[in-house]
């Protein structure tokens, strides 16, 4: 399915944010000059068709008392799939990507205490095929804004 000009406008507004009012979709509809029903039914379709990953709240993990890190893993080529599968089992690991460099798996871990984080990393370090891990923590988060301007 191709996105229409209306879909793109709607998705741009939805990415910018849902207002804190009793009828937020009606507020969007007013901005677009259409009915609330049209907005709701179209969004349900766009969600069903897989264009929308998630509508919801995105929290700042630091402010909730959690801290995240990015870990890069060097792995023997034959073990990448096994290790990736094991890594995916941790609920604290939210993203896990295979990339085209010496460190083949890149994953993020979000925990609310250092003990748990160290435990996860040492368990992964001990998996067969894992050569080394880089724990790449961040001090300054300059930007987190996953918003795609659809034209």
């Amino acid at each position, binding site marked *: 399915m191709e996105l229409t000009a209306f879909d793109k406008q709607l998705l741009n507004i939805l990415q910018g944010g849902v207002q804190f009012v009793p009828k937020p979709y009606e507020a969007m509809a007013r901005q677009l000059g259409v009915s609330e029903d049209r907005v709701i039914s179209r969004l349900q379709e766009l969600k069903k068709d897989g264009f929308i990953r998630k509508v919801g709240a995105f929290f700042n993990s630091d402010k909730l008392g959690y801290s995240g890190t990015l870990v890069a893993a060097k792995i023997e080529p034959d073990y990448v799939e096994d290790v990736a599968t094991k890594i995916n089992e941790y609920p604290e690991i939210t993203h896990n990507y295979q990339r085209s460099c010496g460190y083949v798996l890149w994953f993020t871990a979000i925990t609310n205490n250092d003990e748990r984080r160290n435990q996860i990393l040492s368990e992964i370090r001990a998996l067969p095929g894992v050569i080394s891990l880089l724990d790449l923590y961040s001090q300054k988060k*300059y930007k987190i804004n996953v918003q795609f301007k659809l034209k």
Partner: protein
Amino acid sequence: MNFTETDKKIIRALQSDFPICSEPYKVIAEDIGISQEELLQRLEDMKKEGILRKMGAVLRHVEVGFKANALVVWVVPPEKMDEVAAKMCAHSEVTHCYDRNTAPDWPYNFYTMIHMDSKESCIEFARELSKETGIDQYELQFTEREWKKTSMQYFME
């Protein structure tokens, strides 16, 4: 950081899918057992306090036309970092921008995630960022496979 039980209930309820219906906050407030007014007020507060980054949608970027994405890792002199970050963050194609620590075989201390329509445009865009900032030691890493991408579920213990 101290959160009340009500705060935790709100956070738990909102981190899953937000209803697409006429009065979504009412649905959530009823589930939690508070009034809609209280919920909306608390959300305003959390937004102001920076606890809530965004209440809205994240799209599936490949499906909406951003077919290629790359992690671009840079070596930026620490004293130039804020200035370089400001320039890079000004571009909407840059969705994430962080500093990070280095390792003996890993000199890169600055990370940007870029989203474009093709690999070629990622390469071209990184070249432009490099020209604009004067940072010429960098590497593009393309995503070869997405093994997992979820949202963190907070306060589940």
